[in-house]
């Protein structure tokens, strides 16, 4: 009986036979060289379809188990354990690199977050981060564990959002922060989340659920905001 293969970040499909894997992208930006490589791999290994996911990932669906290693090789990447099964991601809008509405450079900033923190080890629940470059919030920061909205005068930080089984809107905990202040705050938030993941009463819970259980004060104190 087949199952997901976490070490290869391969997701078993409904046919019980083939797998989906995700092309290596940061925040949904696909340069043309990578795009050509993905197209060639999809053709060569007979992907059933490509799927742009809600997390701005590009999935290759219908890959055979015996081809997984070759597919990763051909894509020129190694599977990222910890990023498997849609558990963790940083989702980002085009920001002021591309979009006329963008007020901050979300793409570079998301890259910085990913390089510094991702994957987020030892957190036993999902970690989703959304980086939006204006109030329109096309990456839905309100339903991310950590949601950032970039405005001219700094970042707004929302925490504790989720969209799935136990939907919650994130709560604003800080406004007007600089890039560096966000890096510090995100590190504190992840450390807090990781510590809570290690305690029996809050293990496997999303950040928003932890906040409901314990109140938001411990989190605010851990972040130096209370």
């Amino acid at each position, binding site marked *: 009986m087949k199952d997901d293969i976490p070490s290869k970040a391969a997701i078993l499909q409904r046919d019980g036979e083939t797998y989906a894997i995700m092309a290596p992208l940061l925040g949904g930006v696909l340069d*043309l060289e990578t795009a*050509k490589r993905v197209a060639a791999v999809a053709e060569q290994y007979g992907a*059933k379809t490509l*799927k*742009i996911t809600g997390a701005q990932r590009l999935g290759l669906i219908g890959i055979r188990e015996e081809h997984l290693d070759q597919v990763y090789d051909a894509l020129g990447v190694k599977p990222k354990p910890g990023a498997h099964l849609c558990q963790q991601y940083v989702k980002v809008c085009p920001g002021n690199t591309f*979009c006329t509405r963008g007020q901050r450079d979300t793409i570079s900033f998301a890259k910085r977050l990913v390089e510094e923190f991702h994957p987020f080890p030892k957190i036993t629940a999902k970690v989703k981060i959304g980086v939006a470059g204006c109030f329109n919030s096309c990456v*839905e920061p309100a339903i991310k564990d950590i949601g950032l909205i970039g405005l001219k005068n700094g970042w707004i930080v929302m925490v504790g959002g989720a969209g799935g089984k136990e939907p919650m809107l994130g709560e604003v905990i800080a406004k007007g922060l600089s890039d560096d202040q966000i890096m510090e705050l995100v590190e504190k938030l992840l450390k807090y989340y990781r510590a809570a993941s290690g305690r029996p009463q809050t293990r496997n819970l999303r950040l928003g659920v932890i906040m409901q259980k314990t109140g938001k004060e411990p989190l605010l104190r851990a972040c130096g905001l209370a």
Partner: protein
Amino acid sequence: MKTDIVDKGAILQQQGETYAIAPHIPGGFIDVVTFRRLVDVAEKYGAQALKLTSGQRIAIIGLKEEDLDAAWHDLQMGIGYAIGLCVRMVKFCPGTTYCRHGKQDAMGMGLKLDKLYHGFQLPAKFKIGVAGCEYGCAAPLVKEIGLRGMPEGWIVTAGGTAGAKPRFGDIVGERLTDDQVADLVERIIRFFKGCDWAKKTRLGRVIDQIGLDEFKTAIGVA
């Protein structure tokens, strides 16, 4: 001063010079042949990059205005209505077609609604999300109309939005069959179409203004 060119689905980019276009890719499912053609077009017209969007599209970024018609011609794809006051997209997950978690045929339902409503003009921006299970990877709760597939049928929510003032949709139907969902979606869209006064006010704010009970009465679920 350049602006978006709505009828060419062209979105002006930051530097005020080039455009992005977002071809219609229902639910983000794109076959390998079409993907190859899209990549070739991006290369031929010197696109800066491709961007996978939250609406499950692939935007081709950095096209020149004079190349827009030729790029669309080569793509052989329809326009994705990423801008304008209309049904922007029907976002859906792999559902029972591919995903092991799927409880309902989100792809079938998503494609059906996409065919009926994508690009349909309304008083404000309007998004539809169809998820085949309770994990909700199409984020249905923050869409104007959201469907969640459960073992016993669909849950329908209305009035969600994820922007600066986020709001979850209100439940307006539970345990519905495919046909009942299609009927309810039609009634919600017909109701909103009639809200001429709403000009750019999204459905959730309209519900807040008139009250949930009145909204439910208007769509026949009270």
